[in-house]
């Protein structure tokens, strides 16, 4: 069910109505039911996967939790009689058993994810390798469709698993509640990936009708639809046209695609998350922000702290830190410091861990080489900019521009250019083509397309550009206003008529200017196939 379908609007309207009319102690159960109905509508035969994930996660976590309780009890009881070595040995023994449970859960769930998502990719590469070595045969592809949200809920559940293993918090003993955590439907389509202790603060509580919260939530939902329908779906027409004919739309059109695709991705993804967080807010549930004005990032590292935040933090906590603090890795660090000297030796483990993270991040986005290359390009940019730090320092020592407005603007433009450029891999899907098209931007530059009506040949007319321009200005204005604090709070502090007028205008703008209906293909959320 797409966020922008009529069915979905009816679905959440019904949910909101029921949620606040039934006895409060059933509210989370209602959410669970609705989440499973949502999943059922998306594809009934995929329910089995999310159920397996839920059950295995529940069991493994509960067992690990049990071992912790026994451990605490044992240590308490025998505080006096045990030596430190005994305690350590006992702890490590328990840890081994817990590790087995964690490993099983990780293998089952990541295994499922890998097979479902990457089996054909693996087969394709095996076949390619076989071909290279002259073997005539190849493996045949498997026909597997992706269960809705599998990348998101698997990561969310495994994060929970690892947290419980690390003793961060006790496991959830109620299977229903855990099932809700795994399947909470607003998050299924494109995240964010929540932490259990964070989400649980509000997910299972009893919620009163809170008019302010609800109207804030509704405003947020409308804002998301505005970005999605008025901006993203409109500019999607041009994006598809540009991608669809690489022969006709090379040269400066590639730059247009860079800009347009970035706009589309931003509007679509942040808009979708707005809807998610807004729905949760109406339900009285707090979902963490996933974006923080990413267009204003001054460098790539900062960008990844502002874009798809929950994914970045997931990889940081569950992949990057574990890898870089792994004993063998630390040993390797010591070794490489001896071998290659302090400078390089120190950086090697970081680079290796980062490489692994970015490789995985790329693969997470899609099971094809263009996504992995994209991930690695992010890695490359980060590493290069890190290495360039001394050079920058020298530059800023000579010229006094650091911190000036112009410098900041330059940094913002540079970051946006870099990120948009490597995102071309998303568009053209094929790595060689992408590099070729990117090159043609310089080799076959033709700036006349900006003046001779070339921009009217890609599926948008003059009125569309007006709508886009005004809508983007509104978004920009809101972003600027947001730096001073929540925009909705600012509106709230004005007379009621202002808030209502804004609400109404947004609604009308969506209905009239939204790019939906017959004539516009109902576009999938880009992250829908995750």
């Amino acid at each position, binding site marked *: 069910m797409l966020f922008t379908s009529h069915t979905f609007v009816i679905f959440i309207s019904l949910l909101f109505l029921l949620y606040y009319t039934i006895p409060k102690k059933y509210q989370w159960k209602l959410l669970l039911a609705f989440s499973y109905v949502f999943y059922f509508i998306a594809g009934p035969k995929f329910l089995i996967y999310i159920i397996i994930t839920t059950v295995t996660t529940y069991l493994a976590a509960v067992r690990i939790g049990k071992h912790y309780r026994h451990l605490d009890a044992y240590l308490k009881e025998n505080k006096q009689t045990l030596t430190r070595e005994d305690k350590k040995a006992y702890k490590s023994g328990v840890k081994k058993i817990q590790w087995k449970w964690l490993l099983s859960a990780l293998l089952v769930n990541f295994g499922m994810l890998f097979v479902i998502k990457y089996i054909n990719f693996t087969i394709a590469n095996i076949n390619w390798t076989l071909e290279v070595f002259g073997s005539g045969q190849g493996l045949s592809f498997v026909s597997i469709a992706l269960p809705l949200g599998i990348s998101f809920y698997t990561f969310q559940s495994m994060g929970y698993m690892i947290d419980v293993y690390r003793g961060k918090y006790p496991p959830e003993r109620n299977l229903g509640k855990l099932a809700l955590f795994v399947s909470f439907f607003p998050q299924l389509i494109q995240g964010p990936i929540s932490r259990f202790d964070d989400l649980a603060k509000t997910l299972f509580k009893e919620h009163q009708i809170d008019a302010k919260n609800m109207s804030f939530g509704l405003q947020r939902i409308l804002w998301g639809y505005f970005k999605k329908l008025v901006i993203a779906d409109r500019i999607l027409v041009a994006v598809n046209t540009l991608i669809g004919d690489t022969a006709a739309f090379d040269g400066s059109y590639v730059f247009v695609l860079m800009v347009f695709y970035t706009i589309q991705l931003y509007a679509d993804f942040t808009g979708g998350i707005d809807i998610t967080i807004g729905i949760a807010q109406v339900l009285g549930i707090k979902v963490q922000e996933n974006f923080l004005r990413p267009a204003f990032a001054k460098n790539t590292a900062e960008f990844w702290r502002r874009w798809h935040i929950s994914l970045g933090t997931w990889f940081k906590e569950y992949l*990057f830190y574990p890898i870089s603090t792994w004993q063998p890795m630390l040993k390797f660090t010591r070794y490489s410091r001896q071998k290659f000297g302090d400078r390089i030796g120190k950086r090697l483990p970081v680079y290796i861990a980062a490489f692994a993270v970015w490789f995985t991040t790329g693969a997470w986005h899609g099971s094809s080489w263009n996504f992995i290359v994209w991930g690695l390009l992010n890695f490359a940019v980060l590493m290069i900019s890190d290495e360039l730090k001394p050079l920058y320092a020298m530059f800023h020592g000579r010229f006094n521009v650091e911190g000036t407005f112009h410098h900041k603007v330059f940094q913002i433009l540079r970051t946006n250019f870099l990120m948009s450029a490597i995102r071309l891999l998303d568009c053209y899907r094929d790595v060689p083509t992408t590099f070729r098209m990117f090159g043609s931007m310089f080799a076959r530059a033709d700036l006349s397309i900006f003046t001779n009506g070339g921009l009217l040949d890609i599926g948008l007319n003059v009125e569309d550009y007006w709508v886009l321009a005004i809508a983007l200005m509104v978004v920009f204005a809101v972003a600027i206003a947001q730096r001073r604090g929540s925009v909705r709070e600012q509106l709230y502090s004005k007379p009621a008529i202002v808030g209502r007028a804004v609400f109404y205008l947004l609604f009308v703008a969506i209905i009239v200017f939204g790019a939906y209906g017959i004539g516009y293909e109902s576009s999938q959320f880009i992250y829908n196939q995750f």
Partner: protein
Amino acid sequence: METLLEMLKDMHPEVDFENNDKLIDQGILDSFDIVSLIAEIDNEYGVTIPPESIIPENFNSAKALYALIEKLED
């Protein structure tokens, strides 16, 4: 504590590590810094900081970090 301060100053000479207690909150130390630190701490003190201890509370100030190291040495 001296060694630790030296390590930190090496990475970011411009920062006052004696007194600053918002190293993470202010974004002075990023994830790469943390990883480098952990490797160095392992090298210097022979102590491995587990991933679950990589939380802002432990890294926001040199003092907190040193306390963590001492705790792990036990």
